[in-house]
């Protein structure tokens, strides 16, 4: 049984991405007790799956490393991975929360030596790389994973593969008898930071994401460019592994669309502008990027970044929402539409199409197991009716990393005020 120490002066943070980690750290560093709950076997969320950040083009590992060091140094934060909040009862200052813990089958003895991974033969989809590749069923989710502990996939439990993993472990870290459990804990305030997911691209029927292998999403493109990704950082297209030198980026794929996501997702313009750098970096003058857009929304201080990309002769901008993607005989995706600057019909062939998918909350407001006000897209609104539950990061709005961190800091401050009140009442 997992034991967690939590009282009404504890802040519960749900979601261990960049927002949840920030909220947990900010609160803990003011002396509060924090329980951080994360669904995945590792912290860092979608940020750790990025190749680079805009606008400075630095690697997320850098920012996360600092956060992880703060986390390791802080005894007030208890981290629960593979954990999901299933129920919330009580009121502001005195919540009772049930948390479902899935088995990892690997205990804290693990040194991440990798022997179990070598022993296991079964391969599963690599969720960290958006299923673009395969991993062994005993795996370390990523090189940056925290906790730095292997995970055994439940699909091999009860098979000889699991026994092989156990036999290979020199540290007695594999425990195949691990069971799912539900624990209950107290909290005075809750920071809800469950983040975002890319919009389901297959729903945009005319882009054929589910029919054409060379139509991929922006998050998948991040993994292709990453040296730790499935292609070792080479931008190769999925259908035949050919180098993709002529890449189309389609903006507002799902966003600003009454039939899909009603809101502007804010980050996707900058995301695609950033990704043109990957193409330039990989292929120099032979790498061509084309951005199809309605209008470029490089918000406030990012205008400069946009102007620099615009000055790059290898990047073309076409003012048009692509109407349809087709495929030619060679398996190349063809973008069809009308350039609204001059009303010129085009059918442009590319090696690869990247859909700049918008953001939707990964847990929509109505699915949060508590009374929480949310907007029509499912983002949590700031509302007094939410009592001691505060949204943070992309659970509240479509935000980039920078703004998500600001939002998380604000949520932490609100949560601190609630537990301070509890502390005064209990003193």
């Amino acid at each position, binding site marked *: 049984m997992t034991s967690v120490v939590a009282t009404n002066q504890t802040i519960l943070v749900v979601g261990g991405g960049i927002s949840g980690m920030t909220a947990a750290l900010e609160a803990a560093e003011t002396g509060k007790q924090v329980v951080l709950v994360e669904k995945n076997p590792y912290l860092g969320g979608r940020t750790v799956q990025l190749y680079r950040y805009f606008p400075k083009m630095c690697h997320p590992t850098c920012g996360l490393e600092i956060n992880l060091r703060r986390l390791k140094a802080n005894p007030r934060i208890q981290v629960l991975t593979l954990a999901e909040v299933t129920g919330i009862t009580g009121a502001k200052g005195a919540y009772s929360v049930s948390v479902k813990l899935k088995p990892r089958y690997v205990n804290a003895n693990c040194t991440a030596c990798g022997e179990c991974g070598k022993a296991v033969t079964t391969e599963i989809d690599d969720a960290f790389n958006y299923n673009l590749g395969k991993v062994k069923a005993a795996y370390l989710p990523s090189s940056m994973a925290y906790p730095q502990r292997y995970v055994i996939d439940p699909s091999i439990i009860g098979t000889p593969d699991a026994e092989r993993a156990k036999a290979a472990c020199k540290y007695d870290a594999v425990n195949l008898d691990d069971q799912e459990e539900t624990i209950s804990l107290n909290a005075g305030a809750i920071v809800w930071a469950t983040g975002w997911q890319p919009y389901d691209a297959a729903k945009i029927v*005319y882009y054929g994401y589910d029919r054409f292998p060379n139509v991929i999403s922006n998050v998948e493109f991040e993994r292709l460019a990453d040296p730790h990704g499935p292609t070792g950082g080479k931008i190769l297209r999925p259908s035949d592994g050919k180098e993709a030198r002529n890449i189309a980026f389609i903006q*507002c794929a799902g966003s*600003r*669309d*009454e*039939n*899909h996501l009603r809101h502007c997702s804010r980050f996707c313009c900058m995301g695609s502008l950033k990704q043109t750098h990957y193409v330039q970096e990989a292929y120099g003058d032979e790498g061509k990027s084309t951005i199809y857009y*309605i209008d470029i929304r490089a918000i406030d201080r990012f205008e400069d970044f946009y102007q620099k990309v615009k000055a790059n002769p290898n990047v073309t901008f076409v*003012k*048009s*929402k*692509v*109407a*349809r993607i087709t495929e030619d005989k060679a398996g190349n995706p063809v973008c*069809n*539409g*009308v*350039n*609204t600057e001059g*009303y010129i*019909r085009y059918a442009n062939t590319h090696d690869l199409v990247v859909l700049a998918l918008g953001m939707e909350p990964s847990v929509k407001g109505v699915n949060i197991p508590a009374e929480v006000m949310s907007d029509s897209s499912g983002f949590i609104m700031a509302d007094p009716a939410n009592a001691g539950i505060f949204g943070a990061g992309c659970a509240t709005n479509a935000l980039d990393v920078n703004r998500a961190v600001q939002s998380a800091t604000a949520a932490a401050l609100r949560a601190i005020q609630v537990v301070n009140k509890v502390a005064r009442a209990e003193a």
Partner: protein
Amino acid sequence: MSDLNQQMAERYKNNFLKEIEEQAEMGEWVKMCMQCGLCSGSCPTNFHSGWDHPPQEIFMLIRAGKREEVLNAQGMYMCTSCYNCYVRCPRKVPVTHVMHGIAEYAYRIGRAPKNQPTMHLSRTFWNNATKYGRVNEVKLTQSLYFKDGLGAGIKKAMEMQTVALGLVKAGRLNPLEAIGGGHKCKDLKGIHAMLAKANELEAQRKAAKG
């Protein structure tokens, strides 16, 4: 008819957007367009000549107050009602219906071109179908084929004869109906009463606006 055109131009002066919003059916949607170009890109008629202005260009021309350009345009008559633009429009603008609304308004104020083919088809189909409550296929094709004269009509009929024979064999086309009145619906009086009521309501609605 052209008097009505003059009246409307006088009445709305330089506000053509307002004129379309108030007078054309679905005209109030014009301002919702965000000029993404998805409708034009999705339009199958774009491959034909005579498609001078695609939908989003017509919307922008209306907003820019280009009354003459819009009323002289061919774009709104070219619509085949495939509804691609309608289902894809990110602003949920009923593009198909707006185009029909503008075309109908241009016709009403006497600005529609004479013998415009799609308008001719619509009118012929409507008259044919409402007369007996059912379409008389022979009469309909006759009046369409011979629109441009006897020679052109015979040529077109020869081109299509295998299709016609197939329809006859399948019992979908009765050549004798070229002479007789054609088949009728069961309650012809009811249909006509319904259409009369619909006309009355539309006239009321237009009178209220105009």
